[in-house]
């Protein structure tokens, strides 16, 4: 039983630098989780204890509270590390065991926990000095170590699987979800009684929404003519055509621009020099930043730039499409089979020839599938982008919504627009799904 660990091939305890990455990772996961619990507790204390509540739950903690929160969460993370298989340890596949791969006793765990504090203080010595037999201080003093579960699976005592509600992780996860629902319900002002109490008042709206009024489907709407609203589509159908063409144009323009950019954003195409790597990182950053800003937010900017109208919508959708397709395309380029490329390169082909005849034929089908998928998304977005001045069928939707209370059947008109959107979006979704299936 008491064999020296160094003589075993597998199951070496994690030591020094090699250990630190995963150890720190696991520790920070636990610390962050306890930090989240602390946030929730402080929020709840503020909410139920203080009479004065700031807008959107600004947290008030006394000055001496901050050190307590920080040190307290730190201690809790260490305790959960030492005494239990915490979420952080599980996430990184680590396990605290004695040096002969048994579960440590309570006393050993306590020693480990206490020595950890000394170890933290002496960390520089441990790391850069000769080290205590290559082990961290608290490992050494408590005769325990942190092991990768996959390394020591065979030596570990076989544990009988327990029901999830009896494991440490299961209980903590349930508590975290419960806490999240509690705090989240307060933060997002969830008000079930309003939902129920006001339901009868919305009956007229639901009644109108299920009886759409299609009189303006193709015909000119006299109401709109009276209002002399030149930027409103003449009918639901012409609004629909506008949205369809907006989505089409954005996808075509976005695809054409994203195609060359995707090669600049692919690791295996650009990793030939430091300049190439620089371009790669710039493209990656561009794709990620532009993609993070939804096309509706881009719509606000372009509505200021080129004025309200479908053109602003096209530009907003195009910009988002370039980034989204660029990322998807470049991931495809990175995932290609390098075999043919190497064969071509070794037979003296130039770089552009390799791309032209080796890369492009491999990626075209998946590029097409992604582009179709994107067209689908763009159509969905083109139906609502008029909210920020982007034109399309949504212009009528929000116009009629604004007329609620002024014209008697406004909700029926809204329902007609929604019905048309549903049919077209569903149809395109179905068609693009079928075509994508064929391509793959």
């Amino acid at each position, binding site marked *: 039983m008491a064999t020296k660990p160094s003589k075993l091939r597998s199951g070496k305890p994690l030591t020094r630098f090699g250990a630190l990455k995963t150890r720190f990772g696991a520790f920070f996961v636990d610390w962050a989780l306890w930090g989240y619990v602390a946030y929730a507790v402080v929020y709840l204390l503020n909410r139920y204890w203080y009479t004065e509540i700031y807008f959107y*739950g600004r947290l008030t903690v006394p000055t001496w509270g901050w050190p307590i929160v920080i040190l307290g969460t730190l201690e809790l993370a260490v305790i959960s590390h030492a005494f239990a298989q915490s979420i952080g340890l599980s996430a990184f596949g680590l396990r605290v065991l004695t040096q002969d791969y048994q579960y440590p006793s309570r006393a050993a765990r306590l020693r480990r926990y206490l020595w950890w504090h000394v170890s933290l203080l002496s960390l520089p010595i441990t790391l850069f000095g000769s080290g205590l037999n290559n082990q961290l201080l608290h490992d050494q003093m408590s005769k325990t170590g942190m092991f990768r579960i996959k390394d020591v699976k065979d030596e570990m005592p076989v544990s009988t699987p327990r029901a999830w509600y009896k494991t440490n992780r299961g209980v903590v996860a349930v508590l975290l979800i419960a806490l999240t629902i509690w705090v989240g319900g307060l933060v997002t002002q969830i008000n079930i009684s309003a939902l129920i109490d*006001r339901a009868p008042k919305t009956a007229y*709206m639901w009644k109108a929404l299920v009886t759409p009024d299609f009189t303006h489907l193709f015909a000119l709407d006299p109401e709109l003519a009276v209002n002399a609203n030149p930027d409103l589509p003449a009918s639901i159908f012409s609004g629909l055509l*506008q949205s369809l063409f907006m989505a*089409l144009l954005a996808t075509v323009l976005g695809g054409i621009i994203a195609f060359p950019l995707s090669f600049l954003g692919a690791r295996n195409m650009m990793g030939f020099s430091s300049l190439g790597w620089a371009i790669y990182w710039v493209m990656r950053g561009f794709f*990620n930043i532009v993609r993070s800003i939804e096309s509706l937010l881009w719509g606000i900017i372009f509505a200021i730039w080129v004025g309200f109208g479908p053109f602003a919508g096209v530009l907003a959708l195009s910009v988002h499409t370039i980034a989204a397709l660029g990322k998807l395309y470049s991931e495809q380029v990175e995932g290609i089979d390098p075999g043919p490329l190497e064969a071509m390169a070794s037979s003296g082909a130039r770089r552009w020839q390799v791309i032209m005849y080796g890369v492009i034929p491999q990626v075209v089908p998946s590029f097409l599938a992604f582009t179709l998928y994107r067209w689908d998304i763009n159509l969905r977005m083109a139906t609502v982008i008029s909210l920020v001045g982007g034109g399309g069928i949504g212009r009528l939707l929000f116009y009629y919504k604004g007329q609620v209370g002024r014209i008697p059947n406004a909700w029926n008109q809204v329902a007609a627009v929604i019905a048309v959107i*549903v049919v077209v979006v569903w149809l395109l979704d179905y068609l693009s799904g079928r075509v994508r299936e064929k391509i793959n």
Partner: protein
Amino acid sequence: MQDNYHAGFMTDNPDFGKRFQAIRGRSLVFLTDVIALSYLWTLASYCWNRFALGIGSYATLPWWVMLIVAVELAAVWENFGVSLGMRLLGLRLSSRGEKSGIATHILRYIVWHIAPLSLISFFFSSQQAPWHDRLTHLYAVSAAEVEEKRGPWYHTSWKNALALIAGITVLTAFGVTDVNLYALFTRASRTGRIWVRLLNPDFSLLGSGFRLLIVTIYMALMATIFAIVIAVPLSFLAARNLAQGVIGHAIYTIVRVVISVTRSIDAIIWAIIFLVWVRVGAFPGVLALFVHSIADLTKLYSERLESIDPGPVEAIRAAGGNRLQVILYGIVPQIINPYLSFTLYRWDINVRMATIIGIVGGGGIGQSLYQYMKVSDYRSAGMMMLLIVITVWSIDYLSARLRARLN
């Protein structure tokens, strides 16, 4: 019995099915060509009206003129070249080895106009070919029988037509969406000021922006958590392979239709409806995301259920397991990881959606971003955008990493 009569006394049993097939193929080819040409005509007249006359109308001539022209053009196209419909449905003209020149094609085009009369011979003649084929000995045959001449793409009429259709569609799109490159370039300087301010965020708003961000993340989180609770049981009802009996299939159809319709309505439109219901705040935003997430997650979940391995299910059923045990031990272990992965993906999308749902008044960081934009306070808007970018990026990264581990 038939053998007792002399040859020619009785004809063969008419094979209506085969003749119908031939007619159906030809009609579809013709229909495709007429639709393609009408589309081309409509868009071309739109472009003419839009760019030459400055009016946004799709029609110049009465619709019946367009139809006659399209029909005649389709006839010419099908008689003198390989039309789009012929290419798509695999038909070619062939003289079957006999000599045929341009005159034959002209003759066939003229005789083509009596083609509808061939419908009479559908019942009385054993010949499958219509009269214009038989009179000119120029038959429409399956593409496999004919050797294709290879040439550059612009020598092939259907490829030309496709290029024309694509080109004119993009041109029409330019017209319909009021593309105004002049404004794009001349007004760029107007936005210079805005860009400068957007890129110089007002960091004094970091605290309040962060609190709004917490609201946004919680909106996505609440919508996702509550949606799982509904979507998981619904997905079992919406899986074709688990639907049993008439009632099961009826439920399957109803659930599928409802989630398709719900999914097609964007979360922003849902937010408008819920704003009427529960008034302003983050709650209508949560409800909108919740409803859209239910539909989306049910679709993703049930598609996964439809592709499970039936082996374990049958094994448990054979060992005498009841329906609950089959689900618990045969199905759940197969779907738990994909379900988690889909949920993470949906949470990622919900965070993105939550940042824009504020535009209609759904609360969170999007709402104040939109308000700052409205009052032209671009430095504050820039701060909100910065926070959105960081959050969306990191959650995207986190969820991608976790999903990669789950798969």
